[in-house]
């Protein structure tokens, strides 16, 4: 981060975080630490098979096991007809199967629950689960998206008559926001001075892998049913619990206590959560469920998993004339809460920072017998950014151009903002030149290109590649009217309220519930500036629907750009009330009251009142104007008018060992324009963490299924999250063109690093190998894939990569942990 003089306002100050005090001392309350008296423990008996008919369930031995209160199937609980919600019907004719709380009749993915055991201790529940005898009659698994769409394919849900969930199309020609892609392609094909370039990219299946496994506790005692849940979305969970189970919303209290990360992975409404509610009601005791890590990797929703067919047309001078995008997106066996809409969120980002005149986006969502997919950090936008940034590199190669020059030729120049893009979005601000110049200077782009040339000339074992990603994203989800036009099942506003306490302290209630982002600190800084109160005097309350009754929670980099602005709006109302009271007490006209740094003064005099004094006066209520209530408290609901559009230039220097195929990230430089920065320390942390996840997609992570539809890397032994030893330090900095769409000029930063970094890394890997004839390496670019790509480019055939084989060694033996029928050593 660029260091500058410490600002005099809170905005821009690198405050250390308030929430750390409890987190660094273990004085935390994650859901699994909550165990009310009498709590019973639920364990889910899951199908080890991807696709099968359940022929029998024998519960008798389990029911007789020590400590067991009951063993239940969906029928036993009377919830066979209950379906979990999907809030995003992307087309009117979208095919939507019932997503049951527990499978009845047929299981549709390995890991789907079939029965639950409830016992006095977690160990007893787990022991008894081994005694539940379930017989399955296996059905053909449905694993490959293209095969699933072919005639005669086995159907995941035969009653739907197809494995196609929906096809969603955006055509800038038809929408009137741009030209026709079909015409652009036809014109390019007919024009010797144009080219048409097609590429297929694969977005592998990823697992969000938040560090805190999911957990919930439901306490039915008392008037309200209280649900503690490791969730990103307590408010949505409350509403959806009502929608799903019919419990009146006012009888539900949902609390998201300390939540250990989410990254989209905790945005869902879980069958386990609904089962805990149903069981707590039935047994009249608190019921608790905490998943193991292997359960989490298997059954918590996954992310990405797309096949991307991209066609780009351009003049030979480099001007892009059209982009045609065809996606297949794997939904898994059922639809998650917003799963079908995730690829659609990318539709508007394929044109990225460029002035493409025509864009067509066609996405077909497909059902398979795999774990369902839903939001994962970036949700739709990383996929779009990857495809466009990869194909811009390919186009540069085809045209013999420097990849950065080609981008520059096509991007929106800073003087062209605000700019309405080919998909109809209006980018309010941005300066791609500024971010790029700074990044290239820091990176020493020219110097590294020279080194690359030298290494190529020398035929070095270790080759150098330079990867570029000039990304933008849409943040601040979302203007409610836009969501309405996309048939999304909710708005995009956020709520806040401010309570001025008698003692001068300030309680701020936000509907944006944090799970690691630092809201308590950043929001305190905003309020301290707005109201002129000390940072330390502000308390941020969130994550409990009885404390924060209204909200739409945290996802899509919306907390600051939407939730933060709601706080500003509430503060404006507090100030307006305080001004009125000040005028009354100071015997002045309201028009003569000036507010600055927490002081209300009568213009031209030294008479004044501090906001704390006014809060006390309102509390005492001995003397206040007749036309106001004795309170300064205020609330606001803010519905954004536009998204915000952070952008940045990311540069990666990749070293590839051409003998082993091992890829190493030598250097990573990024310059992000995230508008005004509330807290540089927190913003930097968000960028770092985002980079790590995006880099992990490029280099390390993939959820692999075998040909029977079993997840083969279902523990942290083989779903390889990078450790500290696998990553370098990043050189990140910011520039700012403040957003003009909100009063703070902020843009959002939570997903930027993830969205930007993946193509930078892969472009760098391929750039290192391009001279050897390599044009593509699928993600993750493991050493084996890189080595094979080199061999194939050199005309040497190699053995097919077996993706479905479990490691013979690696501590767990030749055993698939999710398939306990396997050989046990």
């Amino acid at each position, binding site marked *: 981060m660029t260091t500058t003089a410490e600002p005099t306002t809170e905005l821009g100050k690198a405050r250390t975080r308030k929430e*750390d*005090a*409890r987190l660094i*001392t273990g004085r935390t*309350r994650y859901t699994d630490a909550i165990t009310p008296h009498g709590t019973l423990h639920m364990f889910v008996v899951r199908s080890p098979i991807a696709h099968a008919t359940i022929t029998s369930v024998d519960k008798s031995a389990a029911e007789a096991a020590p400590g067991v209160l009951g063993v239940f199937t969906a029928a036993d609980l009377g919830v066979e007809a209950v379906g979990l919600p999907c809030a995003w019907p992307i087309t009117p004719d979208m095919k939507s199967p019932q997503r049951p709380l527990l499978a009845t009749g047929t299981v549709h993915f390995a890991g789907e629950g079939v029965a639950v055991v409830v016992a006095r201790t977690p160990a007893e529940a787990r022991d008894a689960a081994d005694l539940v005898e379930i017989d399955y009659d296996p059905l053909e698994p449905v694993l490959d998206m293209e095969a699933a769409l072919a005639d005669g394919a086995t159907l995941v849900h035969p009653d739907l008559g197809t494995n196609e969930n929906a096809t969603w199309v955006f055509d800038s020609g038809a929408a009137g926001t741009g030209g026709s892609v079909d015409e652009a392609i036809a014109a390019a094909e007919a024009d010797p001075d144009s080219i048409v370039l097609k590429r297929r990219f694969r977005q592998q299946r990823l697992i969000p892998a938040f560090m805190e496994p999911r957990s919930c506790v439901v306490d039915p005692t008392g008037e309200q049913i209280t649900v503690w849940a490791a969730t990103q979305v307590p408010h949505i969970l409350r509403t959806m619990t009502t929608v799903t189970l019919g419990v009146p919303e006012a009888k539900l209290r949902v609390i998201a206590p300390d939540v*250990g990360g989410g990254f989209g992975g905790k945005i869902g409404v879980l069958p386990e959560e609904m089962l805990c509610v149903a069981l707590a009601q039935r047994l009249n005791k608190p019921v608790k469920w905490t998943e193991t890590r292997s359960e989490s990797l298997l059954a918590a929703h996954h992310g990405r998993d797309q096949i991307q067919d991209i066609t780009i047309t351009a003049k030979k001078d480099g001007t892009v004339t059209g982009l045609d995008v065809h996606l297949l997106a794997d939904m898994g066996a059922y639809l998650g809460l917003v799963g079908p809409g995730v690829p659609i969120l990318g539709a508007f980002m394929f044109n990225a920072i460029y002035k493409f005149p025509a864009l067509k986006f066609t996405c077909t969502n497909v059902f398979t017998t795999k774990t369902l997919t839903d939001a994962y950090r970036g949700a739709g936008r990383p996929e779009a950014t990857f495809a466009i940034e990869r194909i811009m590199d390919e186009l540069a190669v085809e045209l013999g151009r420097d990849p950065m020059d080609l981008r520059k030729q096509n991007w929106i120049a800073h003087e062209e903002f605000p700019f309405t893009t080919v998909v109809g979005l209006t980018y309010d601000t941005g300066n791609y030149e500024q971010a790029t110049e700074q990044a290239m200077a820091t990176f020493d782009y020219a110097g590294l290109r020279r080194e690359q040339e030298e290494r190529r000339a020398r035929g070095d074992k270790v080759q150098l590649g330079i990867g570029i990603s000039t990304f933008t994203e849409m943040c601040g989800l979302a203007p409610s009217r836009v969501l309405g036009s996309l048939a999304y099942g909710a708005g995009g506003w956020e709520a806040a309220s401010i309570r001025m306490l008698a003692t001068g302290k300030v309680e701020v209630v936000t509907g944006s519930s944090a799970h*690691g982002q630092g809201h308590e600190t950043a929001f305190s800084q905003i309020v301290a500036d707005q109201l002129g109160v000390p940072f330390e005097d502000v308390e941020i309350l969130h994550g409990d629907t009885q404390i924060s009754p209204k909200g739409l929670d945290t996802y899509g980099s919306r907390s600051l750009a939407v939730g933060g602005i709601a706080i500003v709006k509430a503060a404006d109302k507090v100030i307006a009330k305080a001004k009125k009271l000040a005028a009354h007490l100071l015997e002045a006209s309201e028009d003569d009251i000036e507010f600055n740094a927490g002081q209300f003064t009568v213009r031209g005099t030294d008479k004044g009142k501090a906001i704390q004094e006014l809060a006390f006066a309102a509390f005492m209520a001995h003397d206040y104007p007749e036309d106001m209530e004795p309170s300064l408290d205020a609330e606001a609901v803010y519905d954004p008018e536009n998204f915000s559009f952070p952008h940045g230039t990311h540069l990666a220097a990749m070293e590839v060992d051409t003998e082993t195929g091992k890829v190493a990230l030598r250097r990573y430089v990024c310059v992000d324009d995230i508008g005004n920065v509330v807290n540089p320390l927190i913003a930097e942390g968000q960028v770092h*963490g985002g*980079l790590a996840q995006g880099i992990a997609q490029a280099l390390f992570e993939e959820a692999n299924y075998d040909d029977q539809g079993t997840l083969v890397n279902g523990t942290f032994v083989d779903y390889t999250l990078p*450790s500290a030893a696998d990553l370098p330090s990043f050189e990140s900095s910011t520039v700012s063109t403040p957003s003009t769409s909100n009063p703070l000029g902020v843009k959002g930063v939570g997903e930027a690093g993830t969205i930007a970094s993946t193509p930078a890394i892969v472009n760098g890997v391929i750039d290192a190998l391009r001279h050897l004839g390599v044009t593509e390496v699928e993600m993750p670019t493991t050493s084996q894939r890189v080595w094979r790509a080199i061999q194939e480019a050199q005309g040497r055939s190699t053995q097919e990569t077996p993706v479905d084989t479990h490691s013979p060694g690696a501590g767990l033996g030749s055993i698939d942990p999710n398939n306990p029928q396997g050989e046990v050593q």
Partner: protein
Amino acid sequence: MAQVRVTVDGVNYADDVEPRMLLVQYLRERLGKTGTVVGCDTSNCGACTVHLNGQSVKSCSVLAVQADGAEVLTIEGLARDGELHPVQKAFNECHGLQCGYCTPGMIMAAVDLLGDNPDPDETEVREGIEGNLCRCTGYQNIVRSVQRAAQMMKPGASVPTESPAPVAGGN
């Protein structure tokens, strides 16, 4: 049932436990030391790291009975007399945590690392905490935190600390 006698964060305990009870379960469920958390089932993530007789261990991969006669230090016992350990302070000052779930284990691993190597370079820090996974930070500020703590812990060091966070509330 087997008996375990153990000192945890300076307090002596004697309990009958099932042999299969993991040390981390004993800490959380019996002693209420929920500051130590569980993140995986294969001893990869390190979230459950505590010190057993002065060495960092993953308390999910130790049976409670194996700790019989031992001294255990958890994140909850690290601050002394209301004063945070320098590693705790450094994690706060360098923004070495976000969601906080890996933090107890990460801090306990870092304390052990610095006991072993009081002045680690970046590579040594990264390798020293490779048994602890974090999904939020990208590790960069964790590495900074550990190196800052090393400076703070040097004999006679007076590294200025920004508004040291008090051990507020609770116990």
